[in-house]
């Protein structure tokens, strides 16, 4: 296996809107540190799940990697090319190979574009097919994602479709270019439970067919377990733990990972004992806590945690954790 994507020291800060008074009094500009110096890589054909609670920066990470928003700092190296330096046209070229599946299938399709045209459009944009061919390929794609009879679906508008069907359209649009890499941002979280499995199956089938590499962003650890080879856990803009799925789930080393996993409801393990009691809620990303960002909520925190920021260290094969006092089982 070889590496397809590498992210180095990626940062994305959003300026906090200041009131007129604050601008006039020249109050210092503040930033939300949505993504604050993260590094990781994904191998070809691998699926990395990025998990964490809302506001941890996982969605921002996905958007920055595709340069849908510009990074504040850091490098994004895709197949050997640093895409943070690419100009508009070069970026367009690379987008043939990098695609995104969005969370909200209601908002990510234009309400006034037929779904068939929406799926065919990427081919036309990149000049990969003429109108006839694009339509033909879009029809095949509709069939492939299970929206049949395809010629009937081709002419429908998004509002005629259920959430699950729309998400199939969004996936079809992303897959028609046969990309190498896909960012799937909470691809199933807005879909009804009984439909989720079929959307996951669909993504899985494309992954096999195209040998897709995926960054799968989700808050749902059960879904991550199902689809990912490796899991990265984010907390307040930082990766706190990263490693093979089974390793992270069975031997979580970061107290936050442990808390997250233990909170997930399960049918199989109904009775559960609390291994760890964490308090409070995720603090503000404008002024993150000093040292380890998790220390105010962590039962194991000591002086060191308050002052020194932990770095990712390898504690098992390919299993990294950023914690001064990793949990041992």
């Amino acid at each position, binding site marked *: 296996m070889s590496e397809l994507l590498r992210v180095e020291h990626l940062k994305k800060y959003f300026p906090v809107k200041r009131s007129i008074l604050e601008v006039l009094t020249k109050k210092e500009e503040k930033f939300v540190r949505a993504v604050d110096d993260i590094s990781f890589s994904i191998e070809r054909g691998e699926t990395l799940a990025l998990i964490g609670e809302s506001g941890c920066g996982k969605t921002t990470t996905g958007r920055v990697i595709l340069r849908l928003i510009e990074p504040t700092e850091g490098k994004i190296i895709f197949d050997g090319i640093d895409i943070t330096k690419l100009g508009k046209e070069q970026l367009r070229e690379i987008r043939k190979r990098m695609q995104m599946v969005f969370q909200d299938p209601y908002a990510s399709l234009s309400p006034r574009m037929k779904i068939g045209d929406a799926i065919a459009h990427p081919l036309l944009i990149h000049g990969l097919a003429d109108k006839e061919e694009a339509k033909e390929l879009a029809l095949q794609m509709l069939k492939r994602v299970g929206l049949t009879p395809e010629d009937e679906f081709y002419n429908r508008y998004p509002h005629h479709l259920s959430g699950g069907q729309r998400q199939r359209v969004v996936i079809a649009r992303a897959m028609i270019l046969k990309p190498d890499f896909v960012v799937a941002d909470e691809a199933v979280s807005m879909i009804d*439970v009984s*439909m989720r*499995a*079929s959307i996951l199956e669909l993504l899985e089938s494309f992954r096999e067919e195209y040998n897709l590499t995926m960054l799968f962003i989700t808050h749902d650890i059960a*879904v991550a377990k199902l689809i990912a080879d490796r899991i990265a856990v984010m907390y307040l803009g930082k990766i706190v733990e990263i490693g093979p799925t089974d390793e992270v789930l069975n031997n979580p080393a970061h107290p936050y990972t442990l808390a997250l996993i233990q909170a997930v409801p*399960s049918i199989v393990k109904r009775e559960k004992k609390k291994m760890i009691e964490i308090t409070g809620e995720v603090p503000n990303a404008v002024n993150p806590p000093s040292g380890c960002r998790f220390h105010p909520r962590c039962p194991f925190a000591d002086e060191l945690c308050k002052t020194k920021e932990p770095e990712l260290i390898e504690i098992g094969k390919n299993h990294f954790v950023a914690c001064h006092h990793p949990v041992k089982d």
Partner: protein
Amino acid sequence: MKTIIDVKNLSIYYYTLAGIVRAVENVSFSIGEKEWVSFVGESGSGKSTVAYAILNLVPSPGKIVNGKVVFNGKNLLELDEEEMRQIRGKEISMVFQDPMTSLDPLRKVGDQIAEVLIEHGAEKEEAFERAKELLRMVNLPEDRINYYPHQLSGGQRQRVAIAMAMAFHPKLLIADEPTTALDVIVQDSIMDLIATLKSKGTSIFFVTHDISLAAERSDKIAVMYAGKLVEFGKVEQILDNPLHPYTKALLESVPDVWSERKVSAIPGYPPDLRNPPKGCRFHPRCTIFKIKKELHGICNELETELIEVEKDHFVACHLYRRR
């Protein structure tokens, strides 16, 4: 066990411009004292509509066309608005997915909790003391009485909503997806909170789309599909020995952190309730119906009935009909 609420043959239709949506059809169940019953189903299965019907709050154009909701020997659907107001919030209270439904964004949370108490006859001073106590009960610091809702996080707002719902030690708490908008860790703590309330004597009617969430703290699970109650029983009965093909399929379709099996999707889509399938509403998606030729002419023709196959375990499926 003493029965707290008894729902019989409840049917609710929505009279929309596009046709009559048969959202809830002939649903019967009861909830006992200190019992936690979770209603599970997809969106559009009718689970929330049932919850609203208990307080006679089905939103327009919905109408309760048939059925009884018996609470304390009275049919709540026959009470007038004034009598109903006495029950709402006092004996049966409700929390919603979006806590802002029950909070006023422009007023401090303390004032809002106190107001509910004063309305039902408390003195001002006493009401504020009690408001503080209620906040403590839901694990919020007392000083939060001076906060406005927007100064609180989603989880904290939901705690305030629960505190308000608990002001009069209701007999029944209806919780409509109270954790859906929250992150797992906060969700877990809200679930713990509801469990504490149950231990203090309140029965829980919990609505969720997530069957694994229902698995952990409930006593019983009711599975709804396309407006019908298809299976109802104790948690172990539903999860370890599911009978209805829909329940089985649902359990197989849900990813689980601690399970090694692959998930499999339920084929097809839920039906359009303006024109539900004849017979069992699940039959077009039912794999057993597809395989067993002898069921043709039964499942796609005859209405299903909820029958008790073992103690406390009810199922509405022709496979379990008494012959």
